[in-house]
């Protein structure tokens, strides 16, 4: 069985280590923290990481293809904010949703086009479009930072849905994870992503449509961000656009990287996202129970992300032969 697409032996170790740490943390928290092992708390943990995990799934697909999407959070928050604003100003639901969907797909296409056809490094493209999306929607389309969900709208009802006492977003996360798993593992284009991420030039030479696939990945990521945004709005009954300036974006990268998805592309899969999300979920929950202030939580997360990137840099060193100009 070939190893492409499967975590290599060393990454497997990383994934294993992270999984072990997650288990140890879980056990330690279960023993040491009152109320941690409580079923409600466990559900809360899973719920708290489902949105993060969904965003990380989109990010993972992009990263495996040797890209990154820094506009994910901006798209998530701003698309839903615009949607809710449209609803609040009386636009029919179907029309409003069509607008937003078109907008989201347009940004995804723009990202993909600039990366694939203009050869601009993904990191700059998505940084710029993220900034643009936030700025444009905030200054032109909505009037205040937070936009509430209209009364009795399906988004609000979605937030109240429970199945076996578990909120619906957990199932959405699970379902999406399964779909992504199928896509990456069993479809031709899913397999191609690994080729393209591992060595884009070689992939192109053997006839894989590298560029259209790049565009597809950014569109996919934008679409996933929209779903995550709708779920966020559903559970909070409003969307706060200030989340764009928070560290959520780095949490997403953290989940992906810490789970063992190499930033140099071609490695990792859905399982890595799940492991990463588990560790971060337990960590955040434990920190909240211990009552560490949010500012310090950010500091700790940044330190962990830094450590993860250092480890990633050592395990997956940059390949100077296939690195692109401006790929910094």
């Amino acid at each position, binding site marked *: 069985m070939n190893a492409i697409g499967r975590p290599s032996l060393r990454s497997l170790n990383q994934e294993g280590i992270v999984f072990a740490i997650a288990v140890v943390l879980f056990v330690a928290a279960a023993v040491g923290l009152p109320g941690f092992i409580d079923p409600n708390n466990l559900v809360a943990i899973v719920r708290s990481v489902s949105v993060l995990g969904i965003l990380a799934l989109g990010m993972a697909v992009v990263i495996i293809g040797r890209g990154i999407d820094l506009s994910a959070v901006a798209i998530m928050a701003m698309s839903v904010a615009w949607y809710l604003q449209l609803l609040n100003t009386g636009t029919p639901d179907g029309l409003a949703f069509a607008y937003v969907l078109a907008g989201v797909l347009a940004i995804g296409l723009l990202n993909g086009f600039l990366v694939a056809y*203009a050869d601009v490094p993904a*990191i700059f493209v998505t940084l*710029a479009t993220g*900034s643009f999306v936030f*700025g444009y929607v905030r*200054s032109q389309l909505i009037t205040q930072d937070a936009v509430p969900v209209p009364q009795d709208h399906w988004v609000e009802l979605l937030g109240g849905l429970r199945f076996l006492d578990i909120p619906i977003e957990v199932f959405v996360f699970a379902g999406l994870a399964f779909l992504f798993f199928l896509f990456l593992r069993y479809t031709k284009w899913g397999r191609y992503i690994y080729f393209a991420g591992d060595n884009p030039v070689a992939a192109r030479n053997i006839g894989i449509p590298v560029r259209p696939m790049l565009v597809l990945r950014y569109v996919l990521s934008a679409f996933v961000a929209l779903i995550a945004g709708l779920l966020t709005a559903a559970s909070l009954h409003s969307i706060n656009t200030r989340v764009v300036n928070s560290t959520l974006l780095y949490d997403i990268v953290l989940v992906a990287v810490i789970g063992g998805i190499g930033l140099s592309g071609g490695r990792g899969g859905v399982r890595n996202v799940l492991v990463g999300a588990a560790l971060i979920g337990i960590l955040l929950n434990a920190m909240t129970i211990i009552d560490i202030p949010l500012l310090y939580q950010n500091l700790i997360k*940044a330190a962990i992300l830094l450590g993860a990137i250092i480890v990633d840099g050592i395990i997956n060193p940059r390949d100077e032969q296939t690195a692109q100009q401006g790929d*910094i």
Partner: protein
Amino acid sequence: MSLRERLQSWRYNLVPDHLVGEILTKRWTDNAIPFLALVVTLASFGSIIPGFFKLSSLQESTRQLGEFSMVVTGMTVVMLGGGIDLSVGSIFALSCFSAVYVFFILEQSIWLALCASLAAGLIFGAVNGYLVGYLRLRAFLTTLVTFIFGRALFDILVTTYAADVQLSQATSDVLDFIGDGTFWGLSVSVWLAIILAIVTHIALTRSRPGWHVLAVGGSRRSAHNAGIRVRRTVFMTYVFSGFCASIGGFLIACRLSGAGPGTGLNLEIMALTAAVVGGVSLGGGRGSVVKGLMGAIIVLTMTNGLIRLGYGTGTNQMVLGIMLAVAVTIDIRWLKNRHKVLNEVYVAPVYLKMGDTQSAVPGSGTPYALDNRLSAADHIGLGELEGPEDVILDRDDHLYCGTRHGEIVRFFAPDYVRSEVFAHIGGFPLGLAFDKSGNLISCVGAMGLYSVSPDREVKRLSAETSRSWTSIVDDARLRDPNDCDIAPDGRIYFTDSTKRYDAHDWALDSIENRATGRLLVYDPRDGSTKTLLDGYRYTNGVCMAHDGKSLFFAESWACRVHRYWLEGPKAGTAECVIRDMPGYPDNINRASDGNYWMAWLGMRTPSFDLSLRHPDMRKRMTRRLPQDEWLFPNINTGGVVKFNETGGIVEAMGDLSGAAHPMVTSMREHKGYLFVGGILNNRIGRYKISGADPDWTSPASYWGAKP
């Protein structure tokens, strides 16, 4: 001339298409776009916002500009080294806080605060540098993470100490001066920014560490192979960026007398946008401090202007996002496609209608009619030589020629079997001539005019002439020195065939057919080079007339020979003596009977003559077809022509077999023999001229009998 042709000639001869390509070859075009953007930004905001250029308003915005441009300077240096530093906002904020903490809470002197500020910046920069430089992590993500880390730290510190800072009683005149004072009308921060920019600029362009940064940014691997300590250089760029950001932070601490949650917010994307908008390339190696500063002014004017115009929250981010995306895309596309565009537009053909000519077909009865005499020539150095463009013999009958390998080869008399490398020059030696004292003067393709003494010392005589004011391309440099000859007074007359193409691109010059050939003179007494005539279609061979009072020179693509008068009533003017030949003339040399030999490097063809009347077709051809399929002048057939003092054709000879001398670029008569060379040939031919003076030699003809 039909209307179509008249229109074509106007279109292609009067519209200066070639200038587009020439402008694109200039490095300063890289600066032109950001500079234009700067002017447009300043002009539009200046006219929209009332009082934009008022002193008080400028003072406030320049103060901010001072701090910001320092950060951008640091970012520019990091980007030139091939990295990126997104943590500048955090460094800025933390340095600001350090200064505030030392001054307001510890109540120490302002200088100690400055030290604390710098220390914070340097330490932070060193951490970045260590991670990116020595651990070779990805610059973008690593500095993004250190940015979050620094920001989180700053938020904690600010919320903890904000109240204490408010209550502090510490004051200082120095602090107030740095924060609010002006010096010769400019604030301290602007002065510091200017000094920093100048020092950085000099360091980058004129010092070893600066060159190392540019080398590493240009090509990391090559820099490593050249022995540059790549990792340390990268490390230092981040330390420098930290240093720059920390001074900026210190200045804002002085200006605002405090640090707030908004300090340095969004600074990283602003600085990045500024550097990229200014034209500092991602991936390193290209850019300058000035470009960074231009970008800083553009970005700051844009964001401040929009705020003053009353646009709401988020506008800044929107504009920054657009500017960043557009600038990065332009930068990448420009870098990738500049050469492609240049190749596409550089060749700008002109219209020319060649005059009708007499036939050169064997047996046609015209003076130009070729025969097969040259095929009877003996060969010298067959297979040893590559490209003897010109041949010459000295007083001892030794034979000299240039080769494609940058050497002048000498064949020894009397049998010309034995040879040696007489001198190595490095460029392709074309025209050759002996001066009075036996120095061999040579026009070296793409290099200039050189002299080789009898004891083989190579000396450069001239590589440039004076620059003309109206030329965009640098026409001081000699791009294609082709042939030379020496007047009795020792002055060397030589041709430079084209200003627009290097020697090996002669075919492109023939397709373009633009008249840019020159006749120049080098004066050995003062070493000066002057341009005598300009505007010929590929000036080529030069030959002093027998009486030394005028010279002949060939204009290849126009198939003409001109006479330039050195003295007499027509001194300094040129007149055309032979026009509309059926072949393209190359070198011209003296013959023993008082006439002149002229080489034909190729023959005119009706098809190429027709294409000269269709510049649009030739333009399309160079753009759309591979080079192998272009229509060139025919250089598969040539010959040798003898003409007399008044330009009358005496005889013509050729090699109709095409085996020995299909094209001829030079011939030299010596003791009854004609030595024939060709730039694409692999031999020198020796042809016995019937009825020629068996004692006549060229050196004696020029400089008299042996002293």
